[in-house]
């Protein structure tokens, strides 16, 4: 067994150690423990690179490293590490972004003189560790546990500025909404255990394999009286609940924009690489289980497509730069879901990767802008920053082009493939996919628009405020991460240029080949067979050139960007979105999603709780007190017999005796 992969657990443990260090002695370390975190993530990054290289060498790794609960006459619950192409790639992404975010934090937190830095770096460390643990998890239970820890960290980091009113509330909302999704996830985990007796991802005894076998009639599992496929769909959708929560898909997306209350590097971490990615990654991780259930796939695709469009429209009218980015995140993860549902396993992974880079970049860029603007996030107060902070501007631009999906930046390739795959399988006679594809396509236009509206409002035109006149400078520790990511955002797409391959016939879709390695049950071929056999994807076997769809989406992206250019790339841009009138209000209020969810929480649940409380105090406890009250009242009456007049006693005594005599006389028949 390859030595290097045996160190895979260390990838997880290093950031955890940094968490402990920062927690214990952070206040006595320079930079509040920042260096510990940087060192740890750097170490993890190096190890991840080594891992990727080893995996590229065709090796994989799956080992149980700890038995959490040993079942007596019952299944064991274990922790294990699973290294295959997918997790290796994800490790690389996570460690890279985490490392860069740690570096960036030096600029954003330390240089800005924040307090409570040990807490911050401890949070970052634990967050990274949890995410990495989730990535390498080799079974669903372990995945869930680290999934929850990720949630905890998001709570701690979003609520970092706990002395202000906003962040704690946002943190609470983030945890609560995702918790709601995790409820279904947990039910799903339990259901998986009850159905298959195991929750491991990999191997012939893994639950996706068993599910497939069951459907092929080669194995039998407990399906609680349902047809196997129906039951698998139910279980899959239960797990999907957690995904929808964490990946901020409709209708559980509402926590994400509020999460912008957290420090910007945290936003970068959450949205680019960790928490939100976790959901999509989970679906990819257990894709074999979803692939056998067309219903689940269709729902995933539709939710994804709808979310992509829905969030994009909301992004059109936002004022704060981070809000725009937040909605773009939701929208982009919608694409990934769309791809997964549409059978584009590789496309989804691809987009996951490219998005990680360009979204991290955009957030860090926004962060540097925010530093410059003295923590004012309103784009209408900015303008003309491109000359004052060129590094930020050009990297940010690269990220924006990627986000908008403009050729040849990373986003173009991945998004293009997402749409292509979906269309392809939709044309197999799958109208839901076609609908989802339509929505996704439409969203491309909006994406281009809001992205460049943001760019132009922020960097172009004339400075609209005093701060924008002379912004606060940023140092290397901000510029370095931006530079790295800027490059990646530009070139990351080149690893999988499907259309070019189509044209030239060269085999340059490296990611495809990459994901064809690894464990038998976890390869793209296997997935496509599953999709074909059980979901009918690609059954018709029709061929479709990726060029035309690519051209269409590119055209739309350009159109959107162009419109933004016309409207906002002027010295004195005006609020054109006001022309939307009522629609703008609706959009600006996010279709009143928050309102109804808050109403559900406060307007429905709390009154019910109060009613229950009244009932408890009045009826349930009332009965208890009533009993004692009645007893005491009865006692008060009983003692009244004792009048104190001895003659009455004589009377009562006689009556009592007579009563006894009569009763028993009649009973015993003495008088006959």
């Amino acid at each position: 067994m390859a030595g290097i992969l045996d160190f895979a657990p260390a990838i997880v443990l290093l950031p955890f150690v940094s968490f402990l260090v920062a927690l214990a002695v952070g206040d006595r370390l320079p930079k509040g423990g920042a260096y510990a975190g940087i060192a740890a993530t750097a170490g993890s990054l190096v190890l991840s690179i080594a891992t990727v290289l080893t995996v590229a060498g065709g090796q994989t790794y799956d080992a149980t490293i700890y038995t959490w609960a040993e079942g007596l006459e019952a299944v064991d619950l274990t922790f294990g590490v699973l290294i295959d192409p997918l997790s290796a790639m994800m490790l690389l992404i996570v460690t890279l972004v985490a490392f860069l975010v740690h570096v960036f934090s030096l600029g954003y937190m330390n240089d800005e003189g924040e307090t409570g830095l040990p807490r911050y770096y401890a949070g970052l460390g634990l967050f990274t560790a949890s995410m990495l643990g989730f990535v390498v998890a080799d079974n669903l239970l372990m995945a869930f546990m680290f999934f929850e820890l990720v949630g905890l960290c998001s709570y701690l980091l979003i609520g970092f500025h706990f002395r202000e009113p906003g962040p704690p509330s946002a943190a609470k909302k983030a945890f609560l909404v995702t918790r709601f999704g995790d409820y279904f996830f947990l039910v799903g985990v339990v259901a998986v255990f009850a159905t298959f007796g195991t929750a491991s991802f990999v191997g012939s005894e893994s639950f996706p394999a068993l599910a497939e076998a069951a459907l092929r009639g080669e194995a039998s599992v407990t399906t609680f009286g349902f047809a196997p496929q129906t039951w698998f769909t139910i279980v899959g959708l239960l797990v999907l609940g957690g995904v929808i929560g964490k990946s901020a898909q409709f209708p559980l997306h509402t926590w994400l924009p509020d999460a912008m209350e957290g420090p910007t590097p945290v936003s970068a971490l959450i949205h680019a690489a960790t928490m939100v990615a976790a959901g999509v990654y989970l679906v990819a991780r257990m894709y074999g289980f979803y692939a056998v259930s067309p219903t689940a796939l269709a729902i995933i695709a539709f939710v994804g497509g709808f979310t992509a469009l829905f969030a994009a429209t909301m992004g059109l009218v936002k004022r704060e730069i981070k809000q725009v980015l937040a909605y773009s995140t939701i929208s982009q993860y919608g694409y990934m879901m769309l791809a997964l549902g549409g059978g584009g396993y590789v496309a989804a992974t691809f987009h996951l990767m490219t998005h990680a880079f360009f979204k991290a970049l955009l957030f860090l860029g926004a962060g540097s802008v925010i530093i410059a603007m003295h923590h004012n996030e309103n784009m209408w107060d900015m303008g003309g920053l491109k000359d004052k902070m060129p590094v930020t501007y050009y990297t940010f631009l690269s990220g924006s082009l990627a986000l908008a999906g403009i050729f040849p930046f990373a986003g173009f390739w991945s998004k293009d493939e997402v749409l292509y795959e979906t269309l392809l399988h939709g044309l197999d006679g799958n109208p839901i996919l076609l609908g989802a594809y339509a929505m996704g396509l439409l969203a491309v236009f909006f994406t281009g628009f809001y992205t460049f509206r943001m760019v132009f409002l922020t960097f172009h035109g004339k400075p609209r405020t005093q701060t924008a006149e002379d912004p606060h400078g940023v140092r290397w520790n901000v510029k370095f991460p931006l530079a790295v990511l800027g490059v990646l955002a530009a070139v990351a797409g080149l690893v999988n240029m499907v259309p070019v391959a189509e044209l030239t016939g060269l085999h340059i879709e490296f990611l495809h080949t990459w994901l064809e390695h690894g464990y038998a049950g976890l390869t793209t071929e296997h997935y496509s067979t599953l999709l074909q056999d059980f979901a009918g994807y690609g059954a018709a076997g029709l061929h479709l050139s990726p060029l035309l769809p690519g051209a269409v989406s590119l055209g739309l992206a350009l159109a959107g960007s162009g419109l933004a250019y016309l409207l906002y790339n002027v010295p004195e841009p005006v609020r054109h979105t006001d022309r939307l009138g009522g629609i703008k209000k609706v959009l600006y209020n996010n279709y009143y999603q928050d309102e109804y969810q808050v109403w559900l929480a406060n307007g429905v649940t709390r009154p019910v709780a109060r009613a229950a409380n009244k009932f408890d105090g009045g009826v349930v406890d009332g009965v208890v007190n009533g009993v004692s009250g009645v007893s005491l009242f009865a006692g008060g009456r009983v003692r009244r017999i004792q009048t104190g007049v001895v003659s009455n006693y004589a009377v009562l005594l006689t009556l009592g005796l007579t009563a006894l005599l009569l009763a028993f006389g009649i009973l015993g028949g003495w008088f006959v």
Partner: protein
Amino acid sequence: MIIEALIAVTFLAALVVFVAPDEYAGRLAAALSALPILGSLWMWAQYDASGNALLGGSIAFETDVVWLTLGGLDLHWFVGVDGISLPLIVLTTILSTLAIVSAWTPITDRESQFYGLMLFMEANLLGVFTALDFFAWFVFWEAVLVPMYFLIGVWGGPNRRYAAIKFFVYTNVASLVMFIGFIALVFGLGDSVSSMRLPEIAQALRAGELGAFAGLDAATLKTVAFVAMFLGFAVKVPVAPLHTWLPDAHVEAPTPVSVMLAGVLLKMGTYALLRFNFTMMPDVATALVVPIAGVAVISVIYGAMLALAQQDLKRIVAYSSVSSMGYVILGLVAYTTYGVGGATFQMIAHGLISGLMFMAVGVIYNTTHTRMVGDMSGIADRMPLTAGIFVAGAFGYMGLPLMAGFAGEFFIFKGSFESTVHAGMPLFTAAAMFGIVIVAGYLLFAMQRTLFGPFSFDGEYEITNAPFHDVAPLAVLLLLTIVLGVAPDLFFGMIQDAVNPILTGGGL
């Protein structure tokens, strides 16, 4: 003899402390209460028994002598432990000491009496968890009420008289109901038992040797007795709707007493349910699975909803206990290794975590002299350490993975979902599991309102970090919670070993 030594030492400690001067009664009590901890840990280390004490398994540290004869039945002094009782003993000894330490600040008058009673209660609790003869067990079971009555009544809050008498009478009525049910059962067994030793009775019952008695045929008698005993124990647990004594008791009781009440006394109920109803009469339990699982789900959801409506931090935690103990009932009725074992594990986990939460609330109360959510805000600014532990404890209560609460709850959910006693168990489980969302709801709301946000406090007290001996118990409990959450097998192994015999035979 170790068990006798343990109980005797604790009783003596109680006496010593009772006559000790108030000045250093607290320190003395803490020091003396370390002895039982050592003893219980020694037992844990030496533990070599296997199987269920009631079902023919080997019994560790066993003593068995005849005490007296009643109605042709021998009453024995019969004590011993198995994998179910040992963890509870460890929990009891550790929690008692921590509770005593946490009392140093809030208890300011009649200290020697207070600590004496605490130790007296601990001794009786140890008896409850070790006694294997019904009458000996029942003596301890009832004797626990006496110190609790005083602890609430003397050192409690403004409404303590009502709370104390309510607790006293309510639980006593329950014990009497249970007593009648059990004794009727024993006589229903007739000559097949010669003593009140629980193993004898349990095995006879599972062997189906129950006969007709007092005009009831065997089946009816068994059901009636089961229901009577279930009701009797359900009050202690408490299962909704028999829970109303609990919030009053908790709110009035001083913090250390709440810790013992939630941490250990409630476990008496579930422990007894497991030992008696679910071990001795699995056939009836499985026949009544729907109502039992029903009340379990109701306890979980209803209790959580009630907690959601509270403004008093202590009431929130009190009602959430009702919620958490509902899970235990669900696990017990599942009759799977993970279900029953998880229920037992959850007793320990909830003991630690609820103790932690009550202590944390107590520490906040010691400084602010209020527990009302509305009276304070942002106190994390002034007492960060306490706030931090509070947050950690709260997440433990919400079932955060790698903390004990998650282990217990997940075992229960897994066990009851895959349970075969009734087709509806998955639905019951899913319904009960929604509790994890509500619990997150009320704890997060409470923390947001009190710990976070801009600091404001309308009271004349100076809010600063709590003294070390207030925070130390919290830290210990938090540590234990995490240790048990990361390595549940510390207890879960022996628990399963003791639980598995219950799951087979006996009409199952």
